[in-house]
């Protein structure tokens, strides 16, 4: 099956948007997951709820909120453009931002669980061997969390690939700029007589989803083999 130019553009854009969304939200995701798993602080329940909000809110609400806050005329968006020249409105960066926010709770949940499963006694042992808390985190905690981080990334990536509602609300449906696979499919469905094109995109979407799940399972198994043992 050879892809048309149109399909290739949508596919590459989808991969770029999802990849950027996952990579940029990862450090923040690890930070939030660690806070939730290991630190007790006032307002933790509220913090937890806010992080999970995108999971339960209609994506269109998120798109709308992004539009009024991060758009060129938005409260934050205007400042960002003035000070740094960064704009999220109606371009692929906006699509990545929308995807990152919508997939964030999934990433945090997976990583948080991994943090909760790391044996604190190993970290204690590392401290008695002369390691600072930061070195313990980098050499013990993080490597032992690796399977959780990988599955969190894959979940977030898959969710980003499928993002539709907030993207179309926030950055519209611009060919080559914000028209990812779901948006392209939507366009075909809306167009009379383009059923076969829609079906081809459908198959592509299923193939990438399957591929990412298989790769994640393989990576997780590989990482798990190293860290599963309780010693």
């Amino acid at each position, binding site marked *: 099956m050879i892809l048309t130019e149109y399909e290739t553009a949508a596919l590459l854009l989808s991969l770029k948007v999802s990849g950027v969304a996952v990579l940029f939200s990862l450090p923040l995701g690890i930070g939030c997951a660690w806070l939730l798993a290991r630190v007790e602080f006032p307002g933790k329940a509220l913090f937890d709820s806010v992080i999970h909000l995108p999971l339960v809110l209609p994506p269109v609400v998120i798109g709308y909120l992004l539009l009024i806050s991060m758009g060129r005329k938005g409260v934050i968006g205007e400042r960002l453009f003035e000070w740094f020249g960064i704009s999220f409105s109606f371009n692929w960066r906006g699509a990545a931002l929308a995807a990152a926010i919508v997939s964030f709770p999934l990433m945090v949940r997976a990583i948080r669980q991994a943090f909760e499963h790391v044996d604190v006694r190993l970290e204690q042992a590392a401290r008695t061997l*002369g390691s600072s808390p930061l070195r313990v985190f980098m050499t013990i905690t993080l490597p032992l969390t690796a399977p959780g981080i990988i599955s969190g990334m894959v979940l977030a990536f898959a969710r980003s690939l499928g993002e539709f509602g907030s993207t179309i609300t926030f950055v519209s449906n611009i060919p080559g700029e914000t028209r990812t696979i779901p948006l392209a499919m939507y366009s075909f469905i809306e167009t009379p007589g383009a059923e076969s094109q829609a079906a081809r995109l459908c198959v592509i979407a299923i193939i990438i989803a399957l591929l990412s799940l298989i790769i994640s399972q393989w990576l997780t198994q590989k990482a798990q083999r190293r860290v*599963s043992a309780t*010693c």
Partner: protein
Amino acid sequence: MLTININKQLGDLSLAVAAQLPMSGITAIFGRSGAGKTSLINVLGGLSTPDSGEICLNNQTLFSRQQGINLPPERRGIGYVFQEARLFPHYSVRGNLNYGCRDKDVAHFTKVVQLLGLAPLLKRYPLGLSGGEKQRVAIGRALLTKPKMLLMDEPLASLDLPRKRELIPYLIDLAKNLDLPIVYVSHSLDEILQLAEHMLVLENGRVIAKGSLQQVWNSEQMRPWLSAQEQSSLLEVSVAEVNQNYSMTRVTLSDDVSLWVNSVSLQCGAKLRVRIHANHISLCRIRPQQTSIRNIVPVSVIEVQQRDEDNHRQVKLDLAGHTLWANVTCWACDDLAIKPGLSLFAQIKGVSMTAADLAQSH
């Protein structure tokens, strides 16, 4: 010298310890579970913070509530071997060993690897190691940080008997070969007997006895810990002569008091610690003649104790300045009119001093 003077409330247990631990040899911390043994060494290692007090290691203050000092574990220079080995599963044995090494010291590495017999394990991962091997790696890992002191929290408790037997010689070797003070938590008197030189007994968070192993072992405070079977005295002796014909060894306690024990392959003059069970001593008013028992020594009664529950009395005897405990029935005690100050002869069954009881002195 490790000077401890700390208080900590842990649920129902209030830990209040004031003690000085010597910076040489193995010091055993003994007590029943829940007495605060592990809590105490966690405080020493910096894994938990006392409510008040001070801890000083060789003039360096590790903790002082008053001065607001509380060094984190990584800056105390104290190694810690936990009950479970706590090896890092994602590092190889070599990686685990080197984890705490600040500077590469090949000679030290080689020495520790050799002492603990780790060479064949270096490339393996913790998952595939036996319990005893894991614990050896954990000990090596702690030693390679070059600690000023090593804490061991029942390192043998999670091992089965063959693994314990396998590990004990390594520990004895360590204490001999490395000039490193070790604080060894245990509730096993057998282990303590084989390893320790000093002993500290904790009960309900308080120190009830401390000092050299002999002192503590023969003290009143230890009596309740030992069942009638285990009641025993420890004596430090030196090897005087070997009777090859009967493979027995004569050991001397003082210039004029000596005992015969089953032969041990030791040089004349070597120091030895022998354990004499209180049940294996009988008392006579006159020196027995024509008896099969080889060890007959003059003793004098210091005091007679009776535990409520049984029909035996425990007689504390003086043997050339050393303490010897004997279990005698109440009937015999009354018949012989045993009372403090009385001079008697103690018959000790030589065979009671089996190889297991002959813990080598360091």
